């Protein structure tokens, strides 16, 4: 912008300058691009899907390619909650607590069919889908999902992050 700054007050009735408008649209794109390649997952690993989680995060499939390799075991440092496996009613309070401890921005991935809908555990013990407890951004089908499906899920989440609005100052910007 060649060092020339248009003052916000000077830019007509809306109170916003053209450059500012430009910045707000491109800002989301820029931050989205940065955020989608720096996903720090918190693996909330409970059940069978852990086997595929291990496979997908190690060398043959390598989630590092998506910037999502480094698991953070503290919810405060993570921004993707991967719920890997069945969540039971006994586990639900812990899931909620972990979710509430995570800082914004945060996303939730339901890894496998149990986390998505309870799967074939439709009984007194299992929660029929973690979206009853926490909001979910991406659902990965499969019991357990193949690593390719997981990678597809991560890429869809990346698209979602890239396309969404990223508020960094207040609820408008």
């Amino acid at each position, binding site marked *: 912008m060649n060092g020339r700054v248009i003052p916000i007050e000077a830019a007509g009735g809306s109170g916003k300058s053209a450059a500012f408008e430009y910045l707000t649209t491109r800002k989301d794109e820029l931050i989205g691009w940065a955020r989608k390649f720096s996903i720090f997952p918190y693996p909330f690993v*409970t*059940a069978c899907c852990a086997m595929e989680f*291990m*496979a997908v995060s190690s060398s*043959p499939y390598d989630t590092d390619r998506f910037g999502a390799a480094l698991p953070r075991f503290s919810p405060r440092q993570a921004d993707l909650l991967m719920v890997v496996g069945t969540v039971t009613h006994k586990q639900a309070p812990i899931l*909620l607590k972990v979710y*509430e401890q995570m800082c914004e921005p945060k996303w939730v991935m339901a890894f496998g069919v149990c986390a998505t809908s309870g799967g*074939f555990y439709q*009984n007194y013990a299992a929660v029929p889908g973690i979206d009853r407890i926490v909001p979910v951004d991406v659902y990965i089908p499969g019991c357990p999902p193949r690593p390719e499906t997981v990678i597809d899920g991560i890429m869809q989440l990346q698209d979602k992050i890239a396309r969404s609005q990223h508020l960094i100052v207040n609820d408008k910007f």
Partner: protein
Amino acid sequence: MNAPGPVIANPVRPAFDKASREDTVIVSIGPSHPATHGTIQIFAELDGERILRADVHCGYLHRGFEKECEDHTWHNLIPYVDRLNYCSPLINDFAYCEAVEKMMGIGITRRAVILRTLLSEYSRLCDHITCIAASLMELGAMTAFLYLVMIRDYMYEHIADLTGARVTHSYGRIGGLARDLPEGWLARLEEILVQSDDFLGRAHGLVDRNRIFIDRMRDVGVISQSDALSYGYTGPILRSTGLPVDLRKDTPYLAYAELDFEVPVGIKGDNYDRYYVRMCEIDESIHMIRQCVDLLEPGPINVDDRRCVFPEKTRVYGEIESLINHFKIVMEGPRVPAGEVYSAHEGPNGELGFYLVSTGEGTPWKVHCRAPSFVHVGGTHLMLEGGQLADLVPTFGMINMIGGECDR
């Protein structure tokens, strides 16, 4: 700050909520914690870094296995059985199927016997590799983890060629197996076994004589033989104390009586022994798989018993009797004679038993699983108490608690 939400009830009640001394502190570890792979919660009273007492809680993965089984036919519940010990689903399948076959008085075909033995050992191999890989990763040995998961992934893909699924195979059937080996499967098996020698050798080389590894494993999490027996330990943990109890040797089932193998035992009952017993069992399993391949002969994989085995598809479409037969097995389930049975296989973690009760219907009256992991959790505090807090990581890794099996 957000408004405070509703007060959430604590799902568990620790055995002690007051410290026994003024200078101790009680910490809760888990149920979502890197050291507690799987879902387990440990309340520990700490004197500095030393664990004075520990109270171990499981049940965070209780998915109502037994209740679901009572709602499904004898056949349809096989996928639930798979998800007990999801590191080695095939052993679960075969143990369950054998229990039902005992009740029905079915003897499976020779080819099915050999294939089940082969696949049991293959599954055990995967399980031990998973256990060791995960434990090593928790100790920081990331390279060994990557090597072991690499070879495990070859095995998963290979088993998927046969069963159609990488992890939860649902391959066992009452009276036999789901399908026969695809072409070229055995050739690829031999390739993988050769490769696995290489990968396992690298893991051996990385950790076996590694000072850090030895310091963290040797004389850590020791359990005496009498304690291990009293607390119902079986499998590699009991064998690590020096007692050669192995159902494959003691009460041979499937084709184990024909195979040449040894039962590795430890000397001290510490974590290093458990690691080494598992590593030796991997070698024995590979040896057994090769023997099974030699024993394998062509033949049918299912018994010819219309009570439980599906008729061929061509006949189902061509004749009314087979159609009805197929319909009855699917909708009502195989009729298992009334009675009860307890049948156990040597799972990777220990004695995996199924106690079944039938009333003569197509659905079971009760399916109870004697899960080694659950019993092991009952004695975990013995291994933790008196040790350092950091020792919890290798000890718990070597117990190899599998949530699905422990909590069912």
